[in-house]
């Protein structure tokens, strides 16, 4: 009975994957207010980062080592996205756009990982140019994304923002990924040298972890995952932008 019981539940998982048609309810008035405020704050935050980058560039005259000028707001607002992800998963935040929770969770986790576990932890890579590469990519993407959400909530979405969101990623996404990969790669020798976040045998709890190998595995995982996300976005683009075309034609 035990086996068939556990088997029974697994059979349900196999059969029961018929998805109910997603009935998307719009958020209520109070929820909308909160969401608008949240998205406006996030847009402003990333604008601050963008402005900070530009000012530092103008002040220094070169684009090297700009990380330090925007370090704190970057950490704050990138980690803030975790809260957003948690709210989405816990269903407190209704999905404003039909994006897969798993995919966005993945994206947020990888961003937070890069911000804290790589760039913050390995001080030597903070002067690398690859850091600037992904910071710029993230900044532009996030400004557009959060303003997109803000305008969607207010039901007043300018076509330009929608177009930008679903088109600029074509360049920004590979740019960001390159920056991320190059940064991790740059961090590798320092991790190896300092034994950062690594435990070796023998120890009382018989556990070992090699951060160096872990980072290499993370880099390898980009190979299957990045194309999936990229093509998903391309697919979304075709869907969303062709819808608007039809709308315009029918008017």
């Amino acid at each position: 009975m035990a086996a068939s019981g556990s088997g029974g539940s697994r059979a349900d998982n196999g059969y029961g994957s018929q998805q109910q048609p997603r009935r998307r309810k719009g958020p209520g008035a109070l929820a909308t207010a909160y969401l608008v405020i949240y998205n406006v704050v996030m847009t402003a935050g990333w604008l601050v980062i963008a402005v900070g980058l530009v000012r530092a560039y103008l002040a220094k005259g070169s684009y090297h080592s700009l990380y330090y000028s925007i370090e704190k707001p970057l950490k704050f607002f990138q980690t803030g996205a975790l809260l957003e992800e948690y709210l989405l998963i816990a269903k407190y935040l209704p999905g404003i756009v039909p994006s897969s929770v798993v995919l966005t969770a993945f994206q947020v986790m990888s961003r937070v990982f890069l911000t804290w576990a790589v760039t913050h932890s390995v001080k030597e890579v903070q002067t690398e140019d690859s850091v600037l590469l992904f910071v710029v990519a993230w900044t532009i993407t996030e400004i557009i994304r959060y303003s997109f959400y803000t305008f969607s909530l207010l039901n007043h979405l300018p076509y330009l923002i929608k177009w930008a969101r679903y088109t600029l990623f074509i360049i920004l996404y590979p740019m960001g990924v390159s920056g991320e990969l190059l940064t991790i790669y740059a961090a590798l020798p320092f991790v190896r040298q300092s034994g950062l976040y690594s435990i070796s045998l023998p120890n009382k709890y018989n556990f070992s972890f090699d951060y160096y190998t872990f980072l290499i595995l993370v880099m390898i995982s980009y190979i299957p995952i990045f194309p999936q996300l990229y093509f998903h976005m391309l697919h979304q683009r075709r869907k969303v932008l062709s819808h608007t075309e039809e709308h315009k034609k029918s008017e």
Partner: protein
Amino acid sequence: DGPYLKDYINIQSLAVSSIITLYFTDLGQQVGWTTFFLTEYTGPLLIYLLFYIRLSTIYDQRESRKNFRHPVVHLACFCHCLHYIRHLLETLFVHKLSGGHTPLKNMIKGCVFYWGFTSWIAYYINHPRYTPPSFGHRQVSFAALTFLMCEAGNHFINVALAHPSHSGLQACFPSPTYNPFTWLFLLVSCPNYTYEVGSWISFTVMTQTLPVGIFAFLMIIQMSLWAQKKHRLYLKRFYPEVRRKAAMIPIIF
């Protein structure tokens, strides 16, 4: 769309007086439950033994040869094998598995999980640099004792569930017998999961290995979900008896 048909129902017997619509779905590649469990449990059994004999490709040979092996390593191997041999024998001789099937995808997922974790834990327990438990013989003996008790308990519960006192419409919730291991039925509606969790916690304490603890933690989560589902089913079917019982852990959950 509609309720599922059992394999043995003849379509002619259904469409006697009315017009019916049959929906067909391709469920993809399926495996039988027996195949599923046999594969899932044989893997860990063999994999652990591969690590136990210290294959030269896994561990450094010089280190392996000179190292004295603490008795707990041998005991752990014995307990691990006992656990999976018991599972295999029960799948073959005790469980009355329905003739149903499950998607192949589920079997792959299950095998990856079990086989992967077995490799991970076997690597550390059989490692030349393994550190035996901090509290020495007392910790090992106590944990081994609870492990064996949980294994026995799990076995007796499975036997009790496979031979219910009544069957069909008059089926009632399994009742405790003279066997003390079945007395857990008084407190809990899914004691088999309780004992399974107990086995793995005992194994963790016995080997004092963090990866085993992580595995046990994940098993607890999985077993809790299954127990909760089953408990709800029991509440619907056997309401008066099951009402005051917990799902898996007495009193708490």
